[in-house]
């Protein structure tokens, strides 16, 4: 389903445009794909370049500029539900293709390649329809992309995979770059380690990262990992393994329980959940 633009003014929908061309122009003059006959709009005001499932908005040095979601832009990678404003007019961008950060979009890898061989691939019945439509899209965008994909043709598709698990919401967190929030499994029970012996006795270390290493490098190191199903301790290096509640661990990960006592490099510490 190709992306669409809905043109409106003062809340009244005027027209709908399907983004089915590699480059669509918006402007006052009649030759534009989206004509807005208003003096506040430049002759050629803006353009939208569409490459397969992605569309990019570009201000063509217009007199009065282009806003997206209230902010002035020169160039913008359009996302579903973005509102482009030109003067008093609004253009809402709709793209119901799931974005990369949602669940259903993890389509299998496909190969883009030059046309001559495409015929050979179309022999494959289940891949053919997908390949054909995609090929057309690729063909039309070729000269716009200005990358080496000119004349690109989608030649072969892995069958699209139907995702069966995980709600979309979990994946929206993928783009989170704070590096601390777990991506799946929702919110974690917060946990910490309190040092019980040695010079740092009494200190508390909150486990805010997915990986926390403990110990002395070169002597003995263990790692505490935070996973959707809990916290685990694993031996990393050193001749001796960590001791948990008086018993020595092996090289495998071991799940931690509230108030477990860890002994590492001669230091005792307690693991506990913060409530």
């Amino acid at each position, binding site marked *: 389903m190709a992306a669409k633009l809905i043109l409106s003014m003062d809340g009244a929908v005027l027209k709908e445009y399907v983004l089915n061309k590699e480059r669509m122009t918006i402007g006052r003059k009649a030759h534009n794909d989206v004509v807005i006959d208003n003096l506040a709009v430049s002759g050629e005001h803006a353009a939208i370049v569409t490459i397969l499932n992605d569309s990019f908005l570009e201000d063509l040095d217009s007199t009065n500029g282009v806003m997206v979601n209230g902010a002035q832009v020169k160039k913008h990678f359009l996302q579903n539900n973005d509102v482009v404003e030109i003067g008093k007019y609004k253009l809402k961008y709709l793209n119901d293709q799931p974005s990369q950060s949602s669940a259903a979009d993890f389509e299998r*890898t496909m190969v883009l*390649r030059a046309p001559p061989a495409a015929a050979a*691939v179309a022999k494959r019945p289940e891949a053919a329809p997908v390949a054909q439509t995609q090929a057309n899209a690729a063909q039309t965008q070729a000269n716009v992309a200005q*990358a080496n994909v000119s004349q690109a043709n989608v030649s*072969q598709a892995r069958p699209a995979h139907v995702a069966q698990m995980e709600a979309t919401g979990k994946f929206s967190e993928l783009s989170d770059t704070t590096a601390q929030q777990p991506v799946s499994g929702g919110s974690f029970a917060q946990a910490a380690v309190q040092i019980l012996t040695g010079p740092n006795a009494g200190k508390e270390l909150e486990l805010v990262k997915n990986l926390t290493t403990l110990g002395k490098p070169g002597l003995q190191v263990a790692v505490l990992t935070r996973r959707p199903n809990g916290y685990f301790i694993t031996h990393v290096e050193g001749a001796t393994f960590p001791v948990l509640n008086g018993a020595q661990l092996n090289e495998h990960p071991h799940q931690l329980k509230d108030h477990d006592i860890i002994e590492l490099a001669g230091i005792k510490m307690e693991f506990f959940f913060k409530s």
Partner: protein
Amino acid sequence: MRIEHALEIASQTHPGRVRAHNEDSLSCEPSCGLVVLADGMGGYNAGEVASGITVSVLTTEIKHSLQSVRPEDKDEDGEDVAVSLLRENVQKANASIFHAAQSQPQYAGMGTTVVAGLFYDNRVAVAHVGDSRVYRLRGDDFEAVTRDHSLLQEQIDSGMISKEDARLSRNKNLVTRAVGIDANVTTEVHVHEVEVGDIYLLCSDGLNDMVEDDKIGGTLHALRSNISLAADQLVKMANDNGGRDNVSVILVKVKGDFAAPRGVMAKLLSWFGK
């Protein structure tokens, strides 16, 4: 130091949490410093066939060739023999997949990515086709050594889309090159100097699509003293984040110098296994 003592290698492959098949293949040959990873595509089990052919052709052929040639020598074009070995054998794998696909209808259209590293003489020759990657951790710096052959990478290169916006793209699954889909394949090969302490990561897109680069780097850095644990952890992270694709990783840690023996005496000695 002999190559098998200079390198420590760990690997992991997992079908992920969504797909029934594992179409990734990998192989590690410590005795000749060779690691290969391929991510296959195609219906039924064709993806496995394509990646399997590629890994086995590269491994057996290069291993066999290295009994009679030295990777650090120059070939007639002035390139390291290692480079031409990689290039020729990716081409060989390409031909064999292409022919299988032409003669067997159920394999029509199968193909694979490939990424391979051949370590020799304090260097590594890295070959790749498609969107499987090599990253390097050197000190605190973690960076990609390869650049994907994908539509998205080409858009990034041409300035169409910023690196930050790339994560939002809906065109992530399009590769512009693959092994086995045409009569010929262009393999990208580069030689990099290696330093003691470097860790190289080869992975399929099942890792880098699910886990952000800085988290991959952070994990490698934290667990660099135990790379088999690091490999395990990376696969777990991809699966904890959804595991939408097969995920494969190979880690190579450089523990010592492995300069090729120079001079006649050194070569003689190396034959007797110093």
